[in-house]
């Protein structure tokens, strides 16, 4: 028991110390956290997209539609389980499972803080690239097993799209890894935690390292990750107006919700990778520029401040609710929700919590910027055509990626690093 508690002061991840109990707890927390994030993301996407489109979005289930994703999830769970008569039953059953497993497995190596990762693999980046590319297998299986034309076309599009963009993605990732060698001892690393620590040591996010090449590599990754997760403007595999719903046309109910869960989990995963590789992972912004105890104290209030802001927004929403008998329960619910947010804010002010939550807070904040961008793209851009997508991938992204890689690899050899 003592050993169990001692872990809290350890400086290693549970995987490294072989602490099985804590690893299990971490896995459960991450699984729960991702599921909650997907639910929140579902609500946010509908709300933000609606506001971009001069609509209100969900408003009826719970105050401002806050309970809508839960209602939807319940609906999906109790729907009839339909399997097409001519479907390949085993593959049809396995496809969503594979997609979900791969999407969640990536999170094993993602560091939410110096010790907040399930494990710190010394080949973390390779593991992440390998596992996330397995997801395409599930999609192809789904398309094939449905035994229908639209899913088949969607699956084929998806496979070629993912394979092509993985190359560009790999080029960008390698240039980030090369940047980890730009230290005095020149030792590079593939471990996700050490990549962030390398950025800490070099006192600079890789985003700004060797400007603009670090930025270019990040930019290529940022585009490739949208394509990799099949989101607009690269959402060809599930292009609604062309292929009805692409590879998951024949899926419904719980199986479909697994695809949905996997899509959002994958979005979170690739965003986390981008944050880890280029945006300093758990480091707070300006951690070297605005260093010192005062600034540390100042930035440590951000988590609580965020929740207080949400508390104020929710409170304002409660006050502005229409004065109508039908809104009594909603008003109370939103008020209670505001209080919960405020309570969390107060909780985050308690010193031990305040210190420990820092890393996770900044990591989540950076990831949420990416999530917002995903919604934003979807609300703004038309969809690429299949051949144009391939053209962009092979004729623009990969050459630029290779060029960036060559510069990043060659510059240190001439002692020309900035």
């Amino acid at each position, binding site marked *: 028991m003592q050993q169990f508690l001692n872990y809290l002061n350890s400086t290693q991840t549970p995987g490294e110390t072989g602490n099985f109990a804590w690893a299990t707890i971490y896995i459960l927390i991450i699984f729960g956290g991702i599921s909650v994030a997907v639910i929140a993301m579902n609500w946010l996407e509908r709300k*933000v997209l609606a*506001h*971009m*489109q*001069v*609509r*209100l979005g969900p*408003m009826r289930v719970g105050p401002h539609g806050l309970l809508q994703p839960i209602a939807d999830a319940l609906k999906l769970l109790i729907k009839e389980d339909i399997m097409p008569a001519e479907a390949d039953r085993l593959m049809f059953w396995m496809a969503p499972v594979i997609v979900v497993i791969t999407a969640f497995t990536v999170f094993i190596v993602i560091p939410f803080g110096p010790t907040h990762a399930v494990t710190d693999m010394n080949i973390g980046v390779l593991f992440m690239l390998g596992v996330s590319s397995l997801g395409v297998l599930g999609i192809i299986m789904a398309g094939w097993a449905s035994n229908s034309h639209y899913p088949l076309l969607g699956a084929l599009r998806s496979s070629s799209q993912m394979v092509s963009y993985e190359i560009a993605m790999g080029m960008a990732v390698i240039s980030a890894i090369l940047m980890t060698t730009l230290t005095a001892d020149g030792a590079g690393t593939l471990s996700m935690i050490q990549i962030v620590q390398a950025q800490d040591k070099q006192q600079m996010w890789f985003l700004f390292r060797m400007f603009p090449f670090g930025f270019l590599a990040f930019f290529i990754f940022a585009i490739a990750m949208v394509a990799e997760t099949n989101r607009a403007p690269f959402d060809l595999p599930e292009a609604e107006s062309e292929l009805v719903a692409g590879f998951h046309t024949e899926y419904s109910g719980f199986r479909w919700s697994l695809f949905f869960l996997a899509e959002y989990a994958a979005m979170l995963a690739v965003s986390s990778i981008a944050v880890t590789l280029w945006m300093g992972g758990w480091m707070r912004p300006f951690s070297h520029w605005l260093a010192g105890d005062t600034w540390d104290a100042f930035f440590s209030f951000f988590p609580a401040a965020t929740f207080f802001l949400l508390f104020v927004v929710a409170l304002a929403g409660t006050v502005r609710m*229409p004065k*109508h008998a039908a809104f009594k329960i909603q008003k109370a619910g939103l008020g209670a929700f505001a209080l919960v947010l405020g309570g969390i804010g107060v909780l985050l002010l308690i010193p031990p919590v305040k210190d420990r939550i820092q890393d996770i807070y900044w990591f989540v904040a950076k990831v949420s910027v990416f999530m917002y961008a995903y919604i*934003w*793209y979807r*609300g*703004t*851009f038309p969809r690429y055509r299949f051949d144009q997508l391939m053209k962009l991938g092979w004729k623009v992204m990969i050459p630029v990626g290779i060029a960036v890689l060559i510069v990043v690899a060659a510059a240190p050899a001439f002692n020309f690093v900035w």
Partner: protein
Amino acid sequence: MTFKELTRKVLLLDLLQGLALTFRYQNPKEIYTEQYPLQRPRVAERYRGAPRLGVNAETNETLCIACDLCALACPEHLIVVTSERNPNTRRKELTTFTYDLSRCMFCGLCEDACPTDCLELTQDFELASYSREGMIWDRTTLERGPQPTKYER
């Protein structure tokens, strides 16, 4: 390609402009949706909605003279007017008037045809009914308007 176009293309200005536009529109003041049962839409004065038979406000007598012009004007032949001649005044008097709303396309031709401005299409636009029979309005419904079902706990 001119230099300007090239800069636009490399700096992704075309995409950023679109992004800026959608970002601006997130202002909640721009929301256009009406929350229908709470916010009642204000229909125009000339709106062609539920039909109504006018009655004389003082005597409570119908204004309809049973001339059958509306029934003749209706493209869907959904109005049926029956009348009988009053032996005392020797005038035609309205007995029944049925109007099948389920077939009505609210073209307003009956309204135009009515010589006494008795039949008119009003601003009432909520015409849902629980049954097909409920869509066939008789004379009382047309004169008083549909009476909502009252539910009690």
